[in-house]
C-alpha cells in the first residue's frame, strides 16, 4: 500500500531548483563524477520534499516508486524484514541515498525498510522508473551509477558496520544517539540527588507512596485493632506502637524520649558501619583481583563460591568460638555476607568491562599496572557501587540475625528481648526504626557512589532529562 505524502509537496522545480538538485546530487555517492548533462536529465525527474520530525516517509511493504537523497536533516532507516539479515538501523544524513528498491525490477519494487524522519529533513525524490529510463540513454554512465548503487546496497546488507555498534551492556548509554549537550553547570552528586528529589516530588510517585503507606498502616490498624483477625490478635496495634513511641514516659522504657532508644540505634549503626567498612576494604580488592587475574581466580574462586551460600546463622557457633566477647562475633557475622556481596559484584564489574577499553589502553602504551588503575578500577566502579548497596542491605539483615543470637544492645537485640519479655509494642518500634535506618544508610551509599562517578552522574542526568 502506498501513501501519497501530504508533506509540503512543492511545485515542479524551476530550472534554478534543478541547478540546486544537480549540485546536491553531485555530493552523493551514486551521482558523483557523472556528466552534467546526465545530472540535469536526472534532476528533471526529481522533486524536492520536506518532512517533519517523526513523519514516516515510507513503511516496509509499501510500493517503492522513488529513490531518496537526503539534503539536510536526518532520516532513520530501519531494515527489519529480510530473513538473512539482522534488524539494522541506520541514520541517513546529508548526501546519503536510500529507497533504492525503486530502481529494482517492476515486481521487486517493494520497500524492505521503514524510513522515518528524525530531524526535519529535506530530501530529493527521484522517480525510480524514470531514473532508469534516463540512465539508459547513456549505458556507460548507467553502469557506473548502478555499480555504485550496488556498492551502497552491499554496504547496507553485507557484514555489519552496524555490528560494530552492538554494544556491551555497560555501554548502552554512551552509544545511544547522544543529544548534543547544552553546556551546563557542574553536576555534582549532591546536585543530582536534589534534582532527583525535586523530580520525584513533581511526579505522581509521592502520592502513590503515601497511598501505599496509608494502605499498609490502615490494614495494620484494622486487622489488629478493629477486626481483630485471628492471627493478628496478639500483635501490637498501630496506635499502641505509636503511642508508646511518642510517649515521654513509655510503659516499656523505649521511645523517642529515652536515651536507650538512641543507644540501641547507635550500637547497631556502629556495628554495621565497622562491618561494612571491613567488607568494602577487603571485598573490593579481592573482587578486583578475582576479575583481573585468571590464575588468582582459579585458586580462590571455588573456595569463595563454596563459602558464599552458607547462611549467616550457620556461622554463629564458629563466630562465637573464634572471637571472644559479644561484640566481635556480631561484627564478624555482619561482615560476612557483605563481604561476599561486595567481592562478587566487584568481580562481575571487572568482567563487564569491554575489551575495547583495555585494548585501547594497551595500544596507547599503558603498562599492566596502569591498565589496572586506569581501566579496571574505574570501569568496575558502577558494579562496585551496586555491590555496596546490596552489601549494606545484607549487613543489616545479618546484623539483626547476629544480635538476636548473641550480643547486647542494638535494634535486633531490642526486638528479640521485647518478644521474650512480652513488651510487644517495642517490637514494632524496633522494626520500623530498623527499616528507616537501613534505608538511610543505603541512600548514603548511593550518594557517595554518585559523587565518585561523575561520569555516570552526567550520563544518568542526561538520560533523565
Amino acid at each position, binding site marked *: 500500500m502506498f501513501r501519497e505524502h501530504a508533506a509540503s509537496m512543492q511545485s515542479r522545480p524551476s530550472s534554478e531548483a534543478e541547478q540546486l538538485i544537480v549540485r546536491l546530487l553531485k555530493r552523493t555517492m551514486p551521482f558523483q563524477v557523472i556528466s552534467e548533462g546526465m545530472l540535469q536529465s536526472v534532476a528533471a525527474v526529481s522533486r524536492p520534499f520536506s518532512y517533519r520530525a517523526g513523519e514516516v516517509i515510507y513503511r516496509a511493504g509499501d510500493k517503492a516508486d522513488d529513490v531518496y537523497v537526503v539534503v539536510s536533516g536526518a532520516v532513520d532507516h530501519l531494515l527489519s524484514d529480510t530473513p538473512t539479515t539482522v534488524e539494522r538501523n541506520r541514520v541517513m544524513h546529508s548526501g546519503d541515498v536510500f529507497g533504492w528498491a525503486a530502481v529494482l525490477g517492476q515486481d521487486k519494487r517493494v520497500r524492505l525498510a521503514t524510513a522515518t524522519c528524525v530531524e526535519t529533513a529535506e530530501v530529493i525524490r527521484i522517480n525510480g522508473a524514470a531514473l532508469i529510463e534516463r540512465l539508459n540513454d547513456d549505458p556507460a554512465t548507467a553502469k557506473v551509477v548502478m555499480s555504485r548503487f550496488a556498492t551502497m546496497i*552491499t554496504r*547496507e546488507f*553485507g557484514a555489519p558496520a552496524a555490528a560494530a555498534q552492538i554494544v556491551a551492556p555497560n555501554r548502552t548509554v554512551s552509544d545511544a544517539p547522544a543529544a*548534543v549537550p547544552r553546556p551546563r553547570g557542574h553536576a555534582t552528586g549532591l546536585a543530582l540527588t536534589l534534582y532527583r528529589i525535586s523530580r520525584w516530588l513533581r511526579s505522581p510517585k509521592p502520592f502513590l507512596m503515601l497511598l501505599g503507606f496509608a494502605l499498609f498502616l490502615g490494614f495494620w490498624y484494622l486487622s489488629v485493632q478493629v477486626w481483630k483477625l485471628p492471627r493478628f490478635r496478639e500483635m501490637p496495634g498501630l496506635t499502641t506502637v505509636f503511642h508508646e513511641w511518642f510517649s515521654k514516659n513509655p510503659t516499656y522504657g523505649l521511645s523517642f524520649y529515652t536515651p536507650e532508644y538512641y543507644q540501641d540505634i547507635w550500637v547497631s549503626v556502629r556495628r554495621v558501619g565497622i562491618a561494612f567498612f571491613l567488607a568494602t576494604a577487603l571485598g573490593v580488592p579481592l573482587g578486583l583481583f578475582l576479575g583481573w587475574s585468571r590464575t588468582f581466580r582459579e585458586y580462590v574462586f571455588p573456595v569463595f563460591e563454596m563459602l558464599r551460600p552458607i547462611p549467616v546463622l550457620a556461622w554463629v557457633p564458629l563466630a562465637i568460638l573464634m572471637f571472644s566477647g559479644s561484640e566481635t562475633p556480631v561484627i564478624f557475622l555482619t561482615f560476612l555476607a557483605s563481604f561476599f556481596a561486595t567481592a562478587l559484584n566487584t568481580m562481575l564489574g571487572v568482567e563487564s568491562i569491554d575489551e575495547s577499553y583495555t585494548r585501547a589502553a594497551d595500544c596507547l602504551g599503558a603498562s599492566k599496572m596502569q591498565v589496572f588503575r*586506569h581501566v579496571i578500577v574505574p570501569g568496575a566502579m558502577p558494579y562496585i557501587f551496586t555491590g555496596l548497596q546490596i552489601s549494606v542491605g545484607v549487613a543489616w539483615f545479618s546484623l539483626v540475625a547476629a544480635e538476636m543470637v548473641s550480643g547486647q544492645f542494638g535494634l535486633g537485640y531490642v526486638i528479640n528481648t521485647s518478644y521474650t519479655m512480652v513488651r510487644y509494642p517495642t517490637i514494632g518500634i524496633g522494626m520500623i526504626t530498623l527499616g528507616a535506618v537501613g534505608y538511610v544508610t543505603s541512600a548514603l551509599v548511593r550518594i557517595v557512589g554518585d559523587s565518585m562517578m561523575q561520569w555516570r552522574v552526567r550520563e544518568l542526568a542526561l538520560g533523565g532529562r
Partner: protein
Amino acid sequence: MSTVVKAAGTPTSAKAQAGEIVVSSVGKSYGEGQFVKEVVKDCSFTIERGKLTVMIGPSGCGKSTLIRLLAGFEKPTSGSIKINGKPVTGPGKDRLVLFQESALFPWMTTYDNIMYGPRARGEDTKEARSLAEMLLDKVGLRAFRKKYPTQLSGGMQRRAELARAMINNPEVMILDEPFRGLDAMSKELMWEYYSRLYEESGRTNFFITTDIDEAIFLADRLLIMTNVPTQVRAVVEIDIPRPRDLVSLVDDDRANEVKMEALSLLHEEAMKSFAGGSKAAADFIEAYSKRLRTKKE
C-alpha cells in the same frame, strides 16, 4: 622512541622513520573442525615505511581481523607478520592501533582521554599539553574538553578518539575505519586534517576503509581486498601529487580512472558475497545486469 613533541610540529626531519610491515602468506581461521571459518587466506602485502597505505574491501571480508593480527592481539594461523624485520609477538609500543570498535574511556573527560597516551608513558610535558590543545582545536572540541564522552554526540566522540590517537607519535599508525559514522562535512574536514598530519609527520600509516573517495583522497597506495577469505586482489599506486585538494580531485582524470578501476573490482567482490548474503541485494544486481544486457542488444 620518538617523542610526542614531534608529532605535528616537525615536518621533513621525521621522514626517515622506520616502520616497514611485511605480511607474508598470512592465514587466519576461527573455530575448529567442521566449524572452521577461514577469514584470511594466504595474504601477503607490504606496508612501506613512510607511506600511507589504504586497504579497501567489501564489508566483512576480514579487514579488522588483519588489524588484530597486526596489532598482536591475535596470532595468525599460518604465515608471518614482521615489523622492521622483527616478528610481531604481541602488542607493542611501535604501533598505535585505532580499532574499529575502540572507545573513549567513559570515566575520563575529553581532555583526559586525549592526554591518556602521553600520561601513560610518563610524558605529560608542556609540549604534549600544547599539542593536546591544538588537537582539541583541530577536531573542534575545545568547548567540550571537560565533558565526558556520554555528553558528546557520536561524531564528536569519533573526533575525540581520533585526537587521542593522533597525539601519539608511533612509528606506525594503524587506523580501522576511523571516520566511519561521521557526517559528510566533518568527514571531509577529517580527511584534510589527517592527510596534512601524515604529510607533516611522514610516518608509516595503514588505513582501512570501505569508502572509495576516502581511499583515493588519502592513499599513496591502495590495497583492494577480495571477499572473505580475504587476500589482496589488486594494488593500485595512487600517484596524485600531494597535498591533494578535494575539489579538484573531483575533476582529476587520474583520480576518476583509479576510482572506476577500484569500484569495478570492489563491485565484483561485493557480488560474490551475495551468494550467501542478502536476497534483496542479489535481486537488485540481477535486475540491473539484465537491464544492461537488454540495453546492449
